[in-house]
């Protein structure tokens, strides 16, 4: 499968447990070559969706395919998809090497791959220790090693940042970035935005099992706002909303952002500055404000955002 670019396609996916609908009519596509963040509050259905992608949980209705095939029909699943769900999925009496050797045999991967992954993930020294004594970081790395045994083109990680120290998170970032740059499909779920903010290119946001937003972060965040500090804020606001210079047709949106401060959307910083000068209004500070993933997430997933 080396070199394949495989998209994950989720289509009208629904999962009900009795009266509880965990996932409702969910559709989105995860593209290869980028890192996609799968975001949502705890209990929003992220894990259930990822388990349905890999056939561990059967959907009530709808489909999830990887490279066009449902997981169960992949010819060599562990060469196509690597997935990590539980932070702690080892027999406590097995050593790291023994654990990997079981799954190397199962997937038909050579034992040399076990040694290579132990080295790659910095577990060589712990290879002969039983996993019951492993730290959280070591467990995460052993999970990742297991998922990577088949050198898969698609990587699914459920809450990979849980319990990692800042150094570990930074390492994970670099590692996943490299995998995406190799054309692989990387999907990581998270409820903690800070840890994946700089990592993801695309996001899929769900809430209560339903899709809220999907697409590149930059597009979802919308154009940046301009924050203007001016003692003449009221006059400036009037000028900005009234001025015909804005040829786009839609009037810029201006709101108060504190005393003597305005948040302007729909105009870029140079335009705001030029207009202020043209009307002899003072500008003390001009800041371009990009929406952080966290704000976007809160905006998309809090109750008032859903109308």
């Amino acid at each position, binding site marked *: 499968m080396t070199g394949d670019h495989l998209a994950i396609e989720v289509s009208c996916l629904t999962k009900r447990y009795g009266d509880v609908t965990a996932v409702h009519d969910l559709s989105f596509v995860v593209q290869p070559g980028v890192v996609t963040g799968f975001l949502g509050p705890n209990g929003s259905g992220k894990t259930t969706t990822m*388990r349905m992608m890999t056939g561990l949980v059967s959907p009530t209705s709808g489909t999830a395919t990887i490279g066009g095939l449902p997981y169960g029909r992949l010819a060599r*699943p562990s060469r196509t998809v690597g997935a990590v769900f539980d932070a702690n*999925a080892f*027999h406590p009496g097995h050593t790291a090497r023994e654990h990997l050797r079981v*799954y190397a*045999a*199962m997937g038909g991967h050579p034992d040399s791959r076990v040694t290579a992954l132990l080295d790659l993930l910095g577990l060589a020294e712990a290879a002969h220790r039983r996993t019951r004594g492993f730290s959280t970081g070591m467990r995460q790395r052993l999970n990742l090693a297991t998922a990577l045994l088949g050198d898969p083109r698609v990587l699914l990680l459920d809450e990979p940042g849980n319990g990692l120290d800042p150094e570990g998170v930074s390492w994970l970032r670099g590692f996943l970035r490299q995998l995406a740059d190799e054309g692989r499909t990387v999907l990581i779920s998270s409820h903690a935005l800070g840890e994946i903010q700089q990592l993801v290119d695309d996001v899929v946001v769900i809430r209560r099992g339903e899709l809220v937003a999907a697409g590149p972060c930059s597009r979802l965040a919308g154009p940046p706002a301009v924050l203007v500090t001016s003692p003449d804020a009221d006059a400036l606001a009037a000028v900005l909303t009234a001025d015909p210079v804005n040829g786009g047709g839609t009037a810029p949106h201006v709101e108060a952002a504190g005393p003597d401060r305005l948040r302007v959307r729909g105009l870029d910083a140079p335009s705001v500055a030029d207009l202020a000068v043209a009307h002899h209004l003072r500008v003390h500070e001009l800041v371009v404000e990009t929406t952080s993933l966290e704000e976007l997430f809160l905006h998309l997933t809090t109750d008032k955002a859903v109308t």
Partner: protein
Amino acid sequence: MNHLIRAEFRRLLATRMWGGLLIAAAVLGGGMFGAMALAGPENFDPPMPGLDTEAGLRAILGILGYTAFVPAAAGALAVTSEYRHHTAAVTFLFAPRRGRVLTAKLATYAVVGLAYGLVLAGTAAVALFAVAAARDVSLGLPATTVLALLGRIAVAMVVYLLLGAGMGALIHHQIAALCVVIGYLYVGEPVLMMIPGVNTLYPILPGGATAALTDFTYVADAISAELGSGAVHLLPPVAGALLLTAYAVAASVIAVLLPLRRDVT
């Protein structure tokens, strides 16, 4: 399939259970059984016929058959440990055809059960003949018959290990599976035997089938005496063996079929 069986052997051989199981076989066969033979069934409380009688020899071999809970528990433990340690999800990611995973497990455990049974029967044979020679007792059955009975016990161990594995795959929860397997064999079935009407089913229950395998009529006779009703007759040994195998096959088939659609969370 070969990949899956190799993986299951690796999984099993990497734990300490494997060695422990063979030690248990030697302790039960050579140790416990040897000690019973050495003491002599005639000195049991209540006394049983001696080793020089056919009934005595069959009885003591029947008691050895009762240690089948050890491989049954091992089978249940081995299968449920995948759920307990959350490796089932990883396993089904590597091998989404779950029926094949369980089939590979059962094939692997059949080999393990056979190793267990051979160690148990082998050490028991050595102990029995050594005791007979030391105590200068001439056994109540020809040596070939004794060896054949021990062979049947070894087969019973394979079947019980598979029964345990099947129950483990059905129940998933480790402690619950152990309670069901051991509880049924040692509490459930004896309690059933107290219920008039139900106890006539003894010959076709797993315990009765195991007893039939070695012509161990001690429990059946006890039930008959207790009830004062007509004697409960065991199945012929071959029928007992077949019935026991049918139980194991049924447990395995259910175990193979049932997890196919069950969600792994």
